[in-house]
């Protein structure tokens, strides 16, 4: 489903991670672990194709990916259903909006403007986009932030259902991702060495 070979990723011109080699099979998931600033988001953005890799190769499924970032990409003046219907049309997978809203427990709020939803409800609406997108590979950046325990468990069940249908997921998470048996990748092991010692670059100039 996803194969990564010798990947190096950079943020703002600084290489954060190098020598990444991993794969995610259909029905499998991978959990990215690492401290703040260790490159989890940068790695996910590179996998999603938003930024070019410094080195190495990423092989994605032909059907594409569904990416869920920190921001939920919701328009506050559109209703929950309108927001979701837009993304369903963009992805063109014929995802059922009403079904997706019900899956994240927002059926009764379908006609509420997204701006009037709570932080947790917005997050759930953002995650419902994954369902209507109909892509086999999900790239999730801290999916359970601002979800309460019940909603986090519901999302874990949703994710497990996606994997059971032959999907795959890469999840960056600090806390419990709800996938106890999924392998974890500690990004601290792949931290790129600082590129040259900045002070030495000017040694000759000073002398």
């Amino acid at each position, binding site marked *: 489903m996803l194969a990564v070979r010798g990947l190096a990723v950079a943020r703002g011109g600084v290489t954060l991670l190098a020598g990444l080699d991993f794969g995610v099979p259909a029905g499998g998931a991978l959990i990215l672990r690492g401290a703040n600033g260790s490159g989890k988001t940068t790695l996910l*953005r590179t996998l999603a194709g938003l930024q070019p890799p410094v080195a190495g190769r990423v092989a994605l499924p032909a059907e594409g990916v569904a990416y869920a970032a920190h*921001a939920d990409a919701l*328009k506050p*003046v559109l209703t929950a259903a309108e927001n979701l219907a837009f993304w369903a049309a*963009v992805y063109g997978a014929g995802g059922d909006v009403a079904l997706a809203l019900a899956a994240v427990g927002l059926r009764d709020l379908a006609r509420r403007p997204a701006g009037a939803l709570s932080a947790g409800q917005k997050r759930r609406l953002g995650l419902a*986009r994954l369902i209507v997108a109909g892509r086999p590979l999900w790239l999730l950046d801290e999916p359970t932030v601002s979800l309460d325990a019940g909603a986090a468990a519901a999302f874990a069940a949703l994710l497990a259902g996606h994997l059971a249908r032959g999907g795959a997921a890469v999840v960056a998470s600090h806390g419990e991702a709800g996938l106890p048996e999924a392998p974890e990748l500690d990004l601290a092991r792949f931290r790129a060495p600082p590129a040259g010692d900045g002070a030495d670059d000017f040694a000759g100039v000073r002398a």
Partner: protein
Amino acid sequence: MRALLLRDLRLAVRAGGGFGLALAFFLIVAVLVPLGVGPGGTTLAVIAPGILWLGALLACLLSLDRILALDWEDGSLDLLATAPIPLEAVAATKALAHWLTTGLPLVLFAPVLGVLLNLAPAGLAWLALALLVGTPALSVIGTFGAALTVGIRRGGLLLSLIVLPLYVPTLVFGAAVVTRGAAGLTTATPLALLAAITALAAAILPFATAAAIRVNLR
């Protein structure tokens, strides 16, 4: 594409969307100029084509920073870039939505304001035609400028500085069409050049816009 166009139009007409703001600004400029210059017929009639085109330019400029900045802030632009639709088409669609919500209303109302500015009756139809042909270029060029400045907070002023010089040819030929039309002269040459600018901008700039968005999303 249709979904994106409909969404942008819907966002524009909902609360806080800014639909009508450009038109209201255009209206106020056209009302203020006679107050400042004085109602003396001849002066006003001479400067009317330039004032109307300048007003259209500035009205268009007002709403440019909304084209992409809001989508960038809430993460929609990231998702549009990873969605299975070409980013060039996204750029072209956003420019079209901007023109439909700002340029087209200006085209429809401009003849009324032309009367207010004492523009010769023969020039009114030429004014509407020149705006119809020229304002799409303003939206397309403006979308390109918005893409260049998309990651910059409070980038509105920088956007104006980038975009206004690019508007010069449209302004020159657009005003020329109206001036010559009002004087009863032939307008074929400036109108053809105006159309050429719009056609060239619409053909090339969506690609440049998409490239600029890709760089800014990195």
